[in-house]
């Protein structure tokens, strides 16, 4: 126990520092990856019809004629001063572009996260019940199998079932123009596609922990003594589960962030993830950079939060 909980002060200082270094690394990695792709924003604007001289002109206008490190440094310096820059393709401010998309992604991610948490809880309860009834069985096979299914297959299967066969929801999720809350029916497919694999992942990892906790001698003992199940769960199982559960949910947030790019593109849901995918296609580096950094910051913040919750072990 003394080793697993370092003293508070250095941790509170170290963790944000580590996060800052990680963010820096992420921004360099994202920039480098965008650089390595063939073609640049000037190519996208010229669409193959611009002459070499015109391309050079387009590059100069956008500062793309400068070396990569200089462009990255300029971008980082401006960002530190609150200027996220403008799209290389359309000249629209990056903050406008991303700001217009964030509410949609926030609604999607929050709904998916809520559903994931609910499903994980349900799955853990089932795993616990199973562990109590059949102590020898490892269980978790279904959850592990579901985790292995690629998200794009989940999307296709759900769309075919819910939209194709049953006709409950539209196969595409178009947001109302001019903002406003999206209709719940268009959220169903993307939310399920995000939440089902995440929940399976959570249950696969946590189900075993639950089963282990329930198989501990003092729990078995308490059960035999006739202590109410609710009390056992609250006093003996929940504390053991809290820290790993938070960590798993933090990882799930990362998964949702990455998954939203795919899910939004598949269902035509115009959120930040879809913007990221289409901005990569046209090599719009400032937009890609900002979104990459934003998602990294969100994931790191949640991991940081999970890290700060002390691990409790049963003695």
């Amino acid at each position, binding site marked *: 126990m003394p080793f697993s909980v370092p003293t508070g002060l250095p941790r509170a200082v170290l963790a944000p520092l580590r996060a800052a270094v990680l963010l820096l690394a992420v921004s360099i990695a994202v920039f480098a990856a965008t650089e390595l792709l063939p073609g640049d924003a000037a190519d996208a604007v010229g669409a193959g019809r611009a002459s070499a001289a015109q391309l050079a002109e387009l590059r100069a206008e956008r500062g793309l004629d400068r070396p990569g490190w200089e462009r990255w440094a300029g971008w980082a310096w401006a960002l530190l001063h609150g200027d996220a820059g403008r799209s290389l393709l359309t000249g*629209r401010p990056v903050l406008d572009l991303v700001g217009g998309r964030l509410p949609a992604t926030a609604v999607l991610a929050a709904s998916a996260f809520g559903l994931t948490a609910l499903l994980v809880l349900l799955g853990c309860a089932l795993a616990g019940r199973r562990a109590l009834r059949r102590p020898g069985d490892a269980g978790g096979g279904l959850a592990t199998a579901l985790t292995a299914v690629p998200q794009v297959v989940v999307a296709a299967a759900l769309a075919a079932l819910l939209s194709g066969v049953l006709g409950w929801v539209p196969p595409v999720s178009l947001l109302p123009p001019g903002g406003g809350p999206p209709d719940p029916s268009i959220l169903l497919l993307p939310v399920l596609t995000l939440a089902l694999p995440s929940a399976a992942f959570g249950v696969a990892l946590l189900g075993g922990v639950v089963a282990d906790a329930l198989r501990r001698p003092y729990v078995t003992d308490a059960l035999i003594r006739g202590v109410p199940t609710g009390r056992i769960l609250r006093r003996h199982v929940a504390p053991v589960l809290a820290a790993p559960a938070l960590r798993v949910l933090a990882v799930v947030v990362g998964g949702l962030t990455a998954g939203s790019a795919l899910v939004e593109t598949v269902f035509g849901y115009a959120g930040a993830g879809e913007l990221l995918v289409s901005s990569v296609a046209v090599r719009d580096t400032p937009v890609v950079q900002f979104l990459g950094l934003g998602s990294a910051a969100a994931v790191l913040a949640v991991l940081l939060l999970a890290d700060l919750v002390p691990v409790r072990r049963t003695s």
Partner: protein
Amino acid sequence: MTFKQRRPALLIAFAVLVAGCSAPPPTSGSTTSTLRYVAAGSPAAASNDPHGGLANESDALRFSLLYDVLTVPGDDGTAKPRLAASWEPDRTLTRWTFRLRPEATFTDGRPVRAADVLYSLRRIERKAAENYGRLASFDTRASTAPDDHTVVLVSRMPNALAPEALESVTFVVPEGSEDFGKPVAGSGPYQMAGGDAQTAVLKRNPKWWGSHPSLDGVEIRAVADPQARAAAVTSGQADVAGSVSPAAAKAAGTGVRVVRRTPVTEYPFVMRLDRKPFDDPRVREAFKLAADRRALVDTVFLGYGKVANDLPTPYDASYPEDLAQRPRDVARAKELLTAAGHADGLEVTLLTTTSYPGMDAAATLYARQLADVGVTATVRNEPPDTYFTNVWSKADFYTGYFGGIPFTDVARVALLSKSPTNETAWKRPAWDKAFTEALAVRDDADRNGRLGALQKELWKDGGYVVWGLGEGLDLTSPAVHGLPTGPGFQRFLLDGVRLGDAG
């Protein structure tokens, strides 16, 4: 027009396929008539600048509703007045005087003056790198505005088709507009009421000079994937889906109407005259004779199209109607290849991509047809992201694209010795000279005859295998009436569209 096709299209296509025609969409029964239009376009590339590349159809549609243009294409192929009420050339056809509608005003209250028009035209010329030199034939610096409602445009060469060259894309913005991060005021039939470049809400501009359009508002959403656009209409989320794939039109079912536009979409096979084996005219003719055009049209456009005759603009007024259709002639093609020294066969690589639906299928089928004349063509599918920068106008033999521009524009971008993207390496000084001379001819019949003769030369010797033309296909709910069916920018003029009863 190069918006990218999305791979997950397959998934949605699958879902739509399963859905079939079982669910008739709810028709919009709202009292205010707002047309919900889902247009082709990459949302990330959605722009507020009407003087850029217009690669997104969703942008072109929005600009066509927000801004006035000088002229629009008429049904007979000649330019019709819009912001320009009338025009008159001088005797040399190099100075054109355009008279503007004096009653036109921007939505911010300022009148539309000749200075605004001149500013806009100069800006378009300055941004030539982004808009493929759209106004390259004009010298906008030398052009003048003698009074508030008159613009004198100077053409670099005598040009009888100057009003046609100004059609549709001469969007007029207020003089001095520089920041297009946000939309600037326009003087068109509609004005912005909300949203942004990617999902725009437009309402009728009550002060527009033209006749009152029927629709109160238009909502435009940019959706890149053609299957997703089709699904939006079949599921009742939109009234119009612009530019859907032939497969989506075939699968549309009963609750949805298919609007078939004049066929102008082409995926020609492009051969470079300056590279082997295509430097030999006999090889080029053999490749043209090898094409089974009907089979290609039926496979690629699913019948929504027609056979073409190796000329890129059969819809142009200057097309030589007396030209015989080139047939498929396997025996003759083999003879020609033998004469060219390829009796033992010939191996070529045909590049293609998936930027537009059916481009890959076209190449695959044509490769099989080439096998019948003894040519082994290996088809290589290139990524759509980089096709138009790495393959287009560079490779020896590939699948190209034309989307309905007039013959004079095709000549300017691809057929003159100095054309920036002379993809077939068609470099003939005599042809260039005859083209320039033809443009200086004022009489329509005489000029079209000369331009037609140039096209006949191209038919005989050129590097294009133009096998067919695909129709533009839009899906609409049954309540939409009067959607334009003309080619090119005509489809963006929604003045005559109305929402009524289904049927």
